[in-house]
């Protein structure tokens, strides 16, 4: 009796399971082969990577899978996947960040390497520069008259105490670059300068680099430190801010694109590296992204000061990486005292 019932139930179950809906078979047929794929980790915003990735797909027929995230987060992920990499290309990230994860990358010298602006190309070609990003000062045009702010020294001036928009360098890579640029530009003992600067911030530290322009444009702060790209973009959106290129000089660290060592789709990754430093993409960097090109044969926007007018400082990336821990420790300590 019992076995008969069991048999009946089994038969019922078989009938039930035979009725599962189909349709997935077509999907597998449409999926691209592994050789037609590329996986990119990017810290760029979609407005930047979107058009480039799309154009790359259309031109090469390679399907690109994009994973987005913060620079540090993605580099950590690549490091954790180092044994069997999923990612082919790290697209984005400042050179300081890329340098500290240099062992994850495979060097690649693109066809256009010779046309890269001097100083932007990595010696070992561990990454390809994508765009150059000068650090600038901004001020609110309604609160500050032209000429009142001219350089880094003004940030130590008591006049602007508590009115400076500056992002936390522990969180924002560009903010750390800005701080190191300032220490490099100004004469004197670096740690004393840092102490003064923090005193002048008067405990006001923004948690995100995007907040700097907002704080200045809204009048919460009078002056701010940010990247040229960000400032130009917000200017184009109508924010009442002006850009100052510091008289003491500034840095124009590029962000880069790196080929991951052991990338599963190495050839496609190389094709992508070639593509991002191609003339077409570099033109787009200038025309659509408010950035500066890394190629000598692609002209920057005419309304911007030329690179050689920026009094570019000799920014020591290796040193910046080396002192980062010490810097952040002092930053946290001084800020902690400043707040309390």
């Amino acid at each position: 009796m019992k076995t008969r019932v069991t048999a009946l139930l089994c038969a019922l179950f078989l009938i039930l399971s035979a009725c599962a809906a189909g349709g997935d078979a077509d999907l597998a047929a449409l999926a691209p082969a592994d050789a037609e794929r590329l996986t990119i980790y990017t810290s760029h915003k979609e407005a930047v990577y979107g058009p480039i990735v799309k154009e790359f797909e259309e031109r090469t027929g390679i399907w690109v899978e994009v994973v987005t995230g913060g620079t540090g987060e993605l580099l950590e992920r690549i490091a954790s996947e180092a044994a069997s990499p999923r990612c082919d290309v790290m697209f984005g990230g400042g050179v300081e960040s890329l340098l500290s994860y240099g062992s994850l990358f495979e060097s690649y010298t693109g066809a256009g390497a010779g046309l890269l602006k001097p100083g932007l190309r990595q010696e070992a070609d561990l990454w390809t520069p994508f765009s150059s990003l000068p650090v600038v000062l901004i001020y609110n045009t309604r609160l500050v008259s032209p000429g009142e702010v001219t350089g880094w020294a003004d940030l130590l001036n008591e006049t602007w105490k508590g009115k400076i928009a500056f992002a936390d360098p522990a969180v924002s890579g560009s903010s750390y670059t800005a701080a190191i640029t300032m220490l490099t530009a100004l004469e004197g003992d670096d740690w004393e300068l840092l102490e003064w600067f923090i005193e002048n911030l008067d405990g006001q530290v923004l948690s995100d680099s995007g907040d700097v322009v907002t704080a200045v444009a809204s009048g919460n702060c009078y002056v701010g430190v940010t990247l040229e790209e960000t400032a130009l973009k917000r200017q184009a959106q109508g924010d009442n801010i002006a850009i100052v290129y510091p008289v003491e000089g500034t840095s124009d660290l590029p962000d880069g694109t790196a080929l991951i060592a052991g990338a599963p789709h190495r050839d496609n990754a190389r094709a992508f590296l070639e593509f991002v430093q191609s003339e077409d993409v570099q033109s787009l960097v200038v025309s659509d992204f408010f950035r500066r090109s890394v190629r000598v044969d692609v002209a920057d926007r005419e309304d911007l000061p030329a690179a050689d007018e920026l009094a570019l400082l000799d920014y020591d990336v290796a040193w910046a990486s080396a002192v980062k821990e010490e810097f952040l420790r002092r930053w946290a300590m001084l800020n902690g005292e400043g707040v309390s």
Partner: protein
Amino acid sequence: MKQSSYRRRLLLDFLLVGILPLVVCLSLIFVVFRSTILRSAETSARSQLAGMTACLGETVETCDTVLARLGQDPLVVGALRESAARDTQVYSALYAAAAPLERGADISLYDADGHILYTTGGGRAGEDLASNWGLLALAREREGLVCRRVSPYDTVSRGVMQLARPVSEGGTTVGYAVAELSEEQVGALFAGMYDDGSEIVLLDGFWDEVYTSPGLRDSDLAVWLRTQLLSGGSLNDETGDAEYYVEREDLSGFALALRQPKPLADWVMRLFYIIAGVSILVSLLLCLRVAVGFSRRIFEPVSSLNRAMAQVEGGDLDVRLSVPGTDEISQLSGRFNRMTERLKENLNESVRQQQELGDAQIRMMQAQLNPHFLYNTLDTLKWLGKINRVEEVSTISADLADILRRSISAQEFVALREELALLERYVEIQKIRFPGKFEYVTDVAGDALEVPVPKLMLQPLVENAIIHGFEDGSHGVVRVTARRQGGQVVVTVQDNGVGMAPESVARFEARQGPEEGGGHFGLYNVDAILRLHYGQDHGLVLVPAEKGTCIRAILPVKEGDGK
């Protein structure tokens, strides 16, 4: 306890019989219903999708034809080469070429630098395209038809998809012919080709969204589809509320996805489950009710029978069961009633027999009163008779003493030989009392001598014959015969006297007991004793005789006796 376990088993069986077929039927119905619906939904979705893909392919082909024709028109080539200003002749050629599209797409002509020169769309001067990026760059590179979605970052174009062909002259690209479809035009293309509840997504060659039907705007469905495609995931799972079907259009490389709501909506399933649940519940209750009723019909009579038997076991024979019908249980109850009745009758009978036996024993004991005194007296009489030479007194005393001794012995049965010896003594006395009145003859077979018979069974019969048979003073013969006949011994006492009065015979045969003051007590006593010892069938029989009385007793010889 046994009863309740039967009840439970009965209930379980009823549930099995009542619920299982129902559940099986419901499941089968559900399976058939579901597979039919799903199959028909899938068929209709696939045919709709195929129709729309074909329609898209047709449109792309028509656009291609139109663009190709424009590229070969010398008028158009010339106008593009020179980046000529608006020329009505070129426009007329453009409209004529675009006619097959029936305004399903806008056709534009761009020069080599991407400047727009002519368009069938709205006045869009200055809506130029990049020539080194995107559509035109790709068209130049491919030297053929290019089909692309319009990038969401493209602030210039108004459409959602563009098709382009380079226009060449002598190997150099002089311009581009472009067809552009706006959201409305794409929507019109597929209008009415899919069900109301369904939605469609048009994907480009890399599965980025080109167009979605109005119900899916801002849904990110295209992103999900692409993720599933690249991760090798599934579009249709059990939990989702929709089924997805995808088909690729080969000319454009675009893919069309149809999103069809699950044909078995939640409420249908809920309704089905409710109906199934209710019918199972009803059937459950019915089973319970029937099982309880059934067990009551069977087990209540059984348990009352059980109770009645327990009462009988305790000695109460007056218990009776009601017999409500003619079914098996009622028959059983009737049989039980009859059985107890019979049992009670038997008990009464055996009590009565015990009483009778007791009475006879009492009578016999009374007859044994003070035997030693009587012995001694009789012994004295015997010796007195001898001393005084009165032989009769001496003989009578000796006989009487012997009779007395034998009759008071504790044995109930004696050998027939001994009974005959006692009878001899008795006859000797009676012969002295009634000299010459009768003759006594015995005729006993040798093999009957040792058969045990109840003590003193012959003496009352012989006495009856002597006293009643010859009471008129006549002379006669008393004959005692005994014969073995198989397992029985037949003892007959016969006289040739006056015989018994007919009423006495009738009375005896009816076993009505001796009449008051009438006599024949001995006869009745022997009859009673024989019946007590051997059973009702072994009493005395009055054998009809020509003269006198003939009394016969047929006694079974007990096993091991009578050697």
